[in-house]
């Protein structure tokens, strides 16, 4: 099995560890029979694979490590590295995920 290394990661995804934005909450919803992502203005329903990725971002993790972990757990998923990266780009654009750098910068400016 080939572990991913940094050079295979899309350049738009930061190298710093990623983490779920504190405003967002993952939750299983019985009535909708799926996981949802909750945030102040509403919610989005998540596919199983989207949930699988986000649930691993509750603690800071780099995109490279995340993909390596997922490849280990799902060795048969052929397009996994590409699919995960596409999803990460989407999640970053929507602020579901933030880079931990941003987070620490924010904490600093807030504690002044």
């Amino acid at each position, binding site marked *: 099995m080939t572990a991913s290394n940094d050079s295979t990661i899309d350049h738009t995804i930061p190298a710093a560890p990623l983490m779920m934005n504190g405003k967002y909450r993952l939750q299983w919803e019985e*009535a909708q029979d799926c996981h949802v992502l909750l945030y102040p203005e509403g*919610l989005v329903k998540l596919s199983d694979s989207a949930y699988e990725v986000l649930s691993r971002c509750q603690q800071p993790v780099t995109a490279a490590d995340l993909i390596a972990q997922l490849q280990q757990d799902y060795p048969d998923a052929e397009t996994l590295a590409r699919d995960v990266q596409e999803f990460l780009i989407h999640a970053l654009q929507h602020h579901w995920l933030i880079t931990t750098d941003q987070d620490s910068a924010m904490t600093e400016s*807030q504690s002044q």
Partner: protein
Amino acid sequence: MTETGANHIPMWLLAELTYACPLQCPYCSNPLQLPASRKKELSTEQWLSVMKQARALGAVQLGFSGGEPLVRQDFQELLEAAVGMGFYCNLITSAVGLTDEKVQAFKQAGLSHIQISFQGSDETTNNTFGASNSFHHKMDMTRSVIRHGIPLGLNFVLHRQNMHQVTAFLELALSLGAEFVELANTQYYAWALHNRDQLMPSREQLAEAEAATNRFKEKHGDKMRVFFVAPDYFHDRPKKCSNGWGTTFLTVTPEGEVLPCQSAKVLPGLTFPSVKDQDLKSIWRESELFNRFRGTDWMQEPCASCPEKEQDLGGCRCQAYLLTGDPYATDPVCSLSPKRHLVDEAIAAASQDQQQHNIDETRPLLFRNPRNAKQFQ
């Protein structure tokens, strides 16, 4: 196709805990007929039951609003119960009644999000339009919420008399450390409709406020997210009523009536079911009220044969009724409506008004309070 309640999950429960409010905003969306006393408000047990029933129907977003929800002495208890049920809890507040200790307790209880409203970007404007001496307290509480790490949004309601303050307000929000700001233009229902002539901006004013918002966004980038919600009078297609009547939202009023949208009480010829005598599931799925404007079967022309009818569902029923007198009419915001001229006339009147920033002494704003509400009983 006839839509029924079984096809939809009420994702949002809006719990209007009380109409009591220490502020008196002249654009308030609460009914003009404010109750004289709080005696008929739902009890703690009744609210707990409402939340439980809504959760069982699939509601997952809960907005505590009002009036001022913090007026309720049992707020902390309701919050804790709601978090325990798995709701994502939002508190929509003026910050009056909030203290640093409460913010800490709400954080511990698991409150997910607070929205604090401002009425102006400086002390004078804020305190004039809220009719309360609250500006410095709002700033303190904004800092407190950020310090305790509860996700926060600031809300600035825009109208003719404060719209020039957009940049100043955004600068203020940024300096306080806010991450999210909503610049919400007044929508003309209830008190705002009554005061429309004094609140409605001109087209030019609105365009300038939007441009100022964009300039701010360019200058500061992603540091703070800013949403500018334009008033629908200035569009040529209406907005869906509450994301579609009876599809997403359940509003429960302080006295227990259940509404498909916050202002539905103005509509004539409808009965409003109450959680005091019916369960929420049968209200959502079977009540005449919730089924009346679900889907598109109820429409008249031009909506009935319009190719866009699924996109806006004919717009807002309350706006249609308030402006045309007919709750089944096409929302007059739509340029295809035969009554669009009513909206254009209101905009033209606003643009002609010379005194854009001053309160016109001959037509004073009517502030929202129980005394002023008496004339509407």
